[in-house]
């Protein structure tokens, strides 16, 4: 597919004509581009945002300011576009919420705990990190887009975008805010760069108001974005 520089409509957020090849089932797509500077100002292969990208962002900000839409709604909508693949992550986290012993096993050895639930990970090890009242975890792979596909399905486009990969490491709070997640300074943000052999899963905090819920109902609260750490589960009152 050929693209001209003005072919903005054909350009998706994560689509920067690189050599990522997602046609293979492997969950660790090295792209050998470890020469990047993780600063958007230094992006050399993506160029500045296009006019339509800027207009789209401006429109979204206006609509948010006027209270027509929220950042969370936009994120949710984009998630619906991307969520074509089944994933086991929600079941694993819901089990951890109701079964303390399972949670301990998950935090000690994520891969073995997932295997208990029938999710066989291709990666050597899975590190499950738990959100607490003091710490919020978020996952990124700055070098390529390492992602636990066997657990979370295909990675969302934004996860592979240079924008996310470069910015979340040095301004995580600003990026989280764009996903509708605002954290007080009392909560430490713990960014995990998934840059080598480990894969990661965020175990969000179980929201208040879910006492007595079944595992299945709890799993229904959990979106993929929450298990990467860019959003948190909430129960509407």
């Amino acid at each position, binding site marked *: 597919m050929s693209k001209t520089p003005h072919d903005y409509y054909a350009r998706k957020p994560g689509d920067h004509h690189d050599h990522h090849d997602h046609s293979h089932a492997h969950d660790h797509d090295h792209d050998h581009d470890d*020469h990047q*500077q993780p600063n958007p100002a230094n992006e050399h292969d993506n160029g500045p945002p296009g006019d339509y990208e800027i207009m789209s962002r401006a429109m979204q900000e206006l609509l948010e300011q006027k209270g027509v839409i929220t950042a969370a709604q936009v994120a949710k909508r984009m998630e619906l576009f991307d969520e074509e693949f089944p994933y086991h992550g929600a079941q694993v986290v819901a089990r951890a919420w109701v079964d303390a012993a399972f949670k301990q096993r998950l935090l000690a050895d994520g891969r*073995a705990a997932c295997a*208990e639930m029938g999710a066989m990970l291709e990666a*050597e090890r899975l590190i499950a990190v738990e959100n607490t009242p003091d710490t919020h975890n978020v996952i990124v792979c700055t070098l390529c887009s390492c992602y636990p596909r066997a657990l979370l399905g295909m990675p969302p486009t934004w996860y592979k975008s240079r924008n996310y990969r470069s910015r979340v490491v040095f*301004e995580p709070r600003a990026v989280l805010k764009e996903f509708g997640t605002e954290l007080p300074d009392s909560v430490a943000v713990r*960014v995990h760069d998934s*840059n*080598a052999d480990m894969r990661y899963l965020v175990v969000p905090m179980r929201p208040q108001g879910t006492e007595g819920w079944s595992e299945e109902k709890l799993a229904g609260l959990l979106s993929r974005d929450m298990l990467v750490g860019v959003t948190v589960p909430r129960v509407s009152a």
Partner: protein
Amino acid sequence: MSAAHHEASLKSTYTPAPVHRYSVGDKVAVKRSFPPGHRRTPQYIRGKQGVIERICGAYPNPEELAYGFDGLPAKVLYRVRFLQTHVWPGYAGPANDIIEMEIFEHWLEPAAT
């Protein structure tokens, strides 16, 4: 739970690294080095100091795997924790924000301070 799943749950996937130069809590520095080739150490972390968060095990060296070699002997892989305010001068968030990543032993040296 089926017997097979139970067995899988008991079998740890932890890859031991019986010989390791650093232990959890040790202060380390990432080498400030820029060799060509396939590297899994992000440029932004080179030259920065952190603390060993955990020992992940020993894994074939990705810098050799990338070129068709077997990557053996396996290299010890650590997770290293860095303070964001140290990694990014001018970091806008609070002082206790952290970033962690995996660094192979040959990219680490004892921290000077």
